C-alpha cells in the first residue's frame, strides 16, 4: 500500500464520517422542525410581540389596528390605578389559585392514600375518580350548576340541606360562595392527579415502611419519613402544573356568571384578558401589558416553588420504573 492511497482512505473516512454526522444533524433538525418552528412562530414571536404591544395604545380604525407608542403608561395604569380591574382580577385569581392548589393536592393525596390499600373493586374505584376529568369542563359546570342552584331553580343540594334543617346556601350568587363552588368543581375534576399519586405511591419501598412499623412508628412517621420523600418530586411537579391550570381558569366563570358577577369575584385573569382583547375597544395594549404582568408573576411563583424544593429531579426514578413499555 503506498502512502498516497492511505491518506486518501483516511480522507474518505473523515469525509464519510463528517457526512454521517451532518446527515444525522440534518435529519434531527428536519424531525424537530415542526416543534422548533412552532416554538419560534407560535410562542417566542407572540411573546415578544405581546411585549411590544404592551407599550402601545392600540385602536382599531376602519378595520385595521393603529398603534401609538405610549411607553410605560399601560404598566403605570395597572399598578397605580387603585380601581383598576386588573388589581381585583389578579387578586381573586391568585387567591383562587393558591387555595385551589392546596385543596387539590391535599385531597388527591388523601384519596390516593385511601385507594392505595388493597381491596376488591379498587380498579373500579380508580375509574370512578378519574372519569369526571374526561368530561368537558363545560358539561361539568352545567351539571354542578344544576346541583347547586337555588331551590326555586331546582338545585338538589339546597333541597337536601332544607330537608335536614340547614338554611339554603347561595352557591352561585353570593360572592364568597361562588368561590366555594369553583373549588367543588375543581376537586371533582382532579382525577388525573389522583391517578398519578396512586402510581407514585406504588414506588414507596414497602420494606422501609415495615421497618418503621417494627420500630414502633405510627402512620404519620411512615408518611413523613418514607412516603413523602419518595413522592416529593412528583408532588412538586403536580403542584406547579396545578398552579398553571388554576391561574388559567376560564370556562367555570363564563358559564356561571357574566363578567365575573357577583362583585367581580370570578373575574379571573383569563376572563379579563379575553374581555380587554376582544370585547372592549381600544384595550389591546393594556391587555398585553396585563398578560405580561401575569406572565412575570407566574414565573416568579414557579421560581419560588423550584427554589424551595431542591429535589425536583425527573430522572432519578426513571430507571427503576418498569411501566414504560
Amino acid at each position, binding site marked *: 500500500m503506498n502512502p498516497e492511497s492511505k491518506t486518501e482512505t483516511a480522507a474518505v473516512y473523515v469525509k464519510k464520517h463528517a457526512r454521517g454526522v451532518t446527515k444525522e444533524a440534518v435529519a434531527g*433538525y428536519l424531525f424537530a422542525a415542526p*416543534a422548533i418552528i412552532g416554538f419560534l412562530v407560535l410562542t417566542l414571536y407572540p411573546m415578544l410581540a405581546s411585549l411590544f404591544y404592551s407599550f402601545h395604545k392600540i385602536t382599531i380604525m376602519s378595520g385595521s389596528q393603529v398603534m401609538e407608542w405610549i411607553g410605560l403608561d399601560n404598566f403605570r395604569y395597572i399598578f397605580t390605578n387603585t380601581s383598576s380591574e386588573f388589581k381585583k382580577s389578579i387578586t381573586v385569581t391568585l387567591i383562587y389559585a393558591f387555595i385551589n392548589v392546596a385543596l387539590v393536592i391535599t385531597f388527591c393525596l388523601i384519596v390516593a392514600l385511601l385507594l392505595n390499600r388493597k*381491596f376488591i373493586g379498587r380498579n373500579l374505584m380508580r375509574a370512578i375518580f378519574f372519569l369526571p376529568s374526561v368530561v368537558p369542563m*363545560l*358539561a361539568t359546570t352545567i*351539571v354542578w350548576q344544576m346541583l347547586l342552584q337555588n331551590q326555586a331553580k331546582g338545585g338538589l343540594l339546597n333541597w337536601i340541606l332544607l330537608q335536614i334543617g340547614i338554611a339554603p346556601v347561595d352557591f352561585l350568587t353570593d360572592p364568597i360562595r361562588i368561590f366555594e363552588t369553583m373549588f367543588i368543581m375543581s376537586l371533582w375534576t382532579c382525577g388525573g392527579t389522583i391517578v398519578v399519586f396512586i*402510581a407514585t405511591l406504588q414506588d414507596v419501598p414497602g420494606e422501609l415502611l415495615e421497618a418503621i412499623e417494627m420500630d414502633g412508628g405510627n402512620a404519620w412517621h411512615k408518611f413523613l419519613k418514607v412516603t413523602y420523600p419518595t413522592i416529593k418530586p412528583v408532588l412538586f411537579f403536580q403542584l406547579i402544573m396545578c398552579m*398553571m391550570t388554576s391561574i388559567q381558569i*376560564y370556562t367555570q366563570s363564563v358559564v356561571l356568571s357574566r363578567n365575573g358577577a357577583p362583585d367581580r369575584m370570578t373575574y379571573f385573569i383569563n376572563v379579563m384578558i379575553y374581555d380587554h382583547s376582544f370585547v372592549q375597544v381600544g384595550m389591546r395594549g393594556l391587555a398585553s401589558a396585563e398578560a405580561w404582568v401575569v406572565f412575570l408573576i407566574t414565573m416568579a411563583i414557579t421560581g419560588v416553588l423550584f427554589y424551595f424544593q431542591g429535589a425536583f429531579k425527573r430522572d432519578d426514578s426513571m430507571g427503576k420504573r418498569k411501566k414504560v*413499555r
Partner: protein
Amino acid sequence: MAATAIMNYTSIQKKKKRAKAINTGLILLSCLLAVVFAFPLYWLLRGAFVSHTEILARPPVFFPESLNVDNFRLGLERIQFLRQLWNSVSIVVPYVIGTVLTTSFAGYAFAKLNFPLRGMWFVLVISTMMLPSAVTLLPQYSLYTSLGLAGKPALIIPAFFCAGGNAYFVFLLRQFFMTIPIELSEAAKIDGAGYFRIYSRIMLPLIRPAMIVVALFSFINCWNEFFYTMIYLKTEADYTLPMGLYIVNGMRIPNYEQVMALALVVTAPCLVFFLIGNKYFVEGITLTGIKG
C-alpha cells in the same frame, strides 16, 4: 412466663382487630367518596332522560318512570346539531392527526438523533408547558387574522407545530423513544435504512401504546376546548358542539332537561373513548404526570 406470653398474644390479637377495623372504616370512607364522585355523572344521565315536569319536581325523581328520549330530539333541534357536529369533527380529526404526527417526530428527534443545540431546543419546547396562554393570545390572533386563518384553521394549526399544550406529548413520546435500545436503530443503519425509515418502520411500531395515549388525550383536549373556540369561531355557522351547548344553557328559558341531554351528547364521545381506552388513559396520565 406463660402468663406474659398469653398476655402478649391477646394484645397482638387486639392490635390486629383494631387495624382491621380501621382498614374497613377507610374502605367505607373511600366507597362513600366514590359515591359522591359518581353522583353528578348519574345526575347528568338522569337529567337527560326525565320529563320536563320531573326535572324540577320536589322531592326529586331519582329514577324516572319512563326514559324520555324526546329531550334529545328537542335539544338537538335547538342547535344546528349536524352542522356543529361536523364542525367539531372537522377540527378534531386533523388536530389529532397533526398532534400524533409532529409530536412523534419531535419525540424521536429529541431522543434518538444528535444535532447541534438539541438540549436547548428541547428545553425551550418543553418550557412552553408553563406559559400562561394569555401572553401569546393577542399576537397569535393578529398573526392568524393577517394570514386569513382566524377561524377553524387557527384551532388546527397549533397541532401541527407541537404548540398549544402539546409540548406535554413531545416529552411523553421522547421518554418512550429513550427506552428503545440504540442497537436496534444502529443495526438498521448498517442495513442501509435512512432516518425516516428507522422512525417509521422500527420506532413507531414499538411505541404504539404511547401513540394511542397521545391520540386519546389530544382528542379529549381538542373536543373539550372552549377558550380558543370562543376566540376564533365568530360566526354561528362555525360553532362547535360545546359552543352550541353553551348557548342553549345561557338562554332565558333553558329547559334543563334538554340542556342535560345536550350535555350528555357532548360528553358521550369522551365517555366512550374513556371506556375503550381506560387502560391507556390511566397509563398515559401516570406517565405524563410523573415524567412530564
